[in-house]
């Protein structure tokens, strides 16, 4: 059922756009290029790695997180026509747009590897682990969105709050700068949920990443906390969410 809904969402999303899926791949690529231009030509960031590849891998992961979160947070409220008429587990609704974006994420991750090869980053069998990076960010995003989509039903401020947090928090992730440069802010950056998958992607591409261990632990902690929150929230509200729509 989750798959059927995600497939519907995926098809409907690109049905009347000629370039379809290409848009979902092109936008993060364009953003990565712009960031790479700014931070190599205008502001010169010292980086041990090929900086455009570094930024592009980060942007792809962060886009999966932010696009999923902003599309999914209103999902339960948007599906009012459905939820007030037929019962199915409401927890499925938030993650639907996240899953619908998986094909675009897969293509983007493949392009990260291609881009890295073109930029002369030495190829490695580690690159085969890129799907793991994808899985990590999808699980994290799906759980976060399950929580925010239920909260949004009760507090319609959540959608704006999510937008604001996403807008600010790209600067609190190591997308645009090497994590080591963050100095005293490093703990804050490490606590940001998307930092984990981003650092894992750097390790997969380059073979090293700052604070890799802590990032992975932080991600796992987020997954556990969000999963517990999801279970708690839906155990209480699954059957009464529709009353608020």
């Amino acid at each position, binding site marked *: 059922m989750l798959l059927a809904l995600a497939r519907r969402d995926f098809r409907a999303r690109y049905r*009347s756009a000629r370039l379809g899926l290409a848009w979902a791949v092109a936008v993060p690529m364009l953003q990565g290029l712009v960031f790479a231009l700014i931070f190599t030509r205008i502001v010169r960031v010292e980086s041990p790695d090929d900086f455009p590849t570094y930024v592009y891998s980060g942007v792809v992961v962060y886009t999966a997180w932010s696009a999923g979160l902003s599309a999914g947070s209103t999902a339960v409220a948007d599906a009012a*026509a459905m939820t007030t008429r*037929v*019962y199915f587990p409401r927890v499925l609704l938030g993650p639907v747009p996240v899953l619908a974006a998986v094909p675009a994420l897969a293509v983007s991750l493949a392009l990260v590897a291609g881009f890295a090869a073109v930029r002369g980053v030495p190829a490695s069998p580690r690159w085969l682990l890129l799907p793991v990076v994808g899985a990590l960010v999808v699980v994290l995003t799906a759980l976060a969105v399950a929580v925010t989509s239920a909260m949004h039903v009760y507090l319609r401020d959540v959608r704006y709050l999510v937008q604001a947090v996403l807008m600010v928090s790209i600067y609190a992730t190591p997308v645009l700068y090497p994590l080591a440069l963050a100095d005293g802010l490093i703990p804050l950056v490490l606590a940001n949920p998307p930092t984990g998958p981003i650092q894992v992607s750097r390790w997969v591409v380059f073979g090293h990443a700052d604070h890799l261990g802590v990032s992975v632990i932080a991600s796992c902690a987020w997954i556990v906390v969000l999963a517990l929150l999801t279970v708690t929230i839906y155990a209480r509200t699954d*059957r009464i969410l529709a009353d608020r729509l």
Partner: protein
Amino acid sequence: MSGSPDPADLSAPSAAITLQGVTKRFRLGDHGASIAGGALRLLRRSSPADEVTALRDIDLEIPFGSTTGIIGRNGSGKTTLLRILAGVTAPTAGSVCVVGRTAPLIGVGVGFDPELTGRENVLVNGQVLGMRAHEVAERFQAIIDFAELGDFIEVPVKTYSSGMFLRLAFAVAIHADPDVLLVDEILAVGDLAFQQKCLDRMNALQARGATIVVVTHSLDVVNRLCSQAVLLDRGAIARTGTPEEVIGAYHDLLHAGDGRMQPGSSFKVTGDRPVVGGATVHLSLADESGDEVRVLASGRPFAVRFRAEFAEEIDDPVFGIALHQPGRGLLYVRHTTPGDYRGRHGPGRPLGVQVTLQNRLLRGEYAVQAAVLDPMAAATLGASGWHSFSVVSRERSVGIVDMDAVIEADGAPVTVSAFQRIGEDLS
């Protein structure tokens, strides 16, 4: 749908649907709540005044294989009850136990996406309604046959006419092959042929032993389809029983404490004549055996009885009745002419009238009114309120008046006179 049956009751459930003490309260006024509102609410605590009770203490058993009609005025809790049965929302208190797979027909086309084709929507919608993917695939042909869509099944549903959309949506829902089918006012839409098709399909489900619950304003549907009915009033069960009993109770409810519930302008009996007052009129309907009724059988004679009480002395009043159908207008008026009736009335000497009528009305909702005029039929002394009633029939005729068709083909009778047949039934 799960529920929590009485833990002491370990035996198999005796009914398809069992409700015990079901109460549903909604909190008012914080749709689209904000953080500020949420904080305020925490400070104030929610007061009972912010809540509305949609259902109170409903006890109901719906037997396996029965078809139950739920009727009631707007806001009586019908749809909330159906949503609780569908599991869309949980009751605030009480327990719900529904045995088997339910398919809700609460607003059709749930989860349809206008950008996708009919085929794609059927696959998703079928699963939303509880079918497994392979079940949808197996029934796909039957679904598009029922919907009569042909090649349109491969076209985005945004290009469908509303009728096509509805047919497809209904077709999916009806093929979910449920143990319990929940229907909310579905049959109010679609053309006559499609309505008939839906009714036939529901009859087929009944024949297979499915349990059906129908929420409707169409008393005719309740009468034709249902084996039992429930009347809801302000969130509580006012009456359960046979469709006829419950429809009768519904009419009584519509008029309880309000003799002036009048469709259209009042005093249809007396046209534009001025109302001068001086008389009050009370009216009732009786069937052939003289029992007071609110449901009449088409083709059977019935009586309109009314009683006029006068504040002043009056000689030789003129009086009559009018029949009206809501939405269609005046159907029939009959009153006496000056001089037809000779009699003296006044305080303590009321006028009692019985008007016997042949019931040539077809099934539907009607209303009757009686009025009393002065001896010259120049002014209205008083009139009753509109008294609503239902006519039921097994005839296939559609419309208002039974024209008693006799159909012959190639010189041989195909159907006989309904009135003649009723005469034979009686003898």
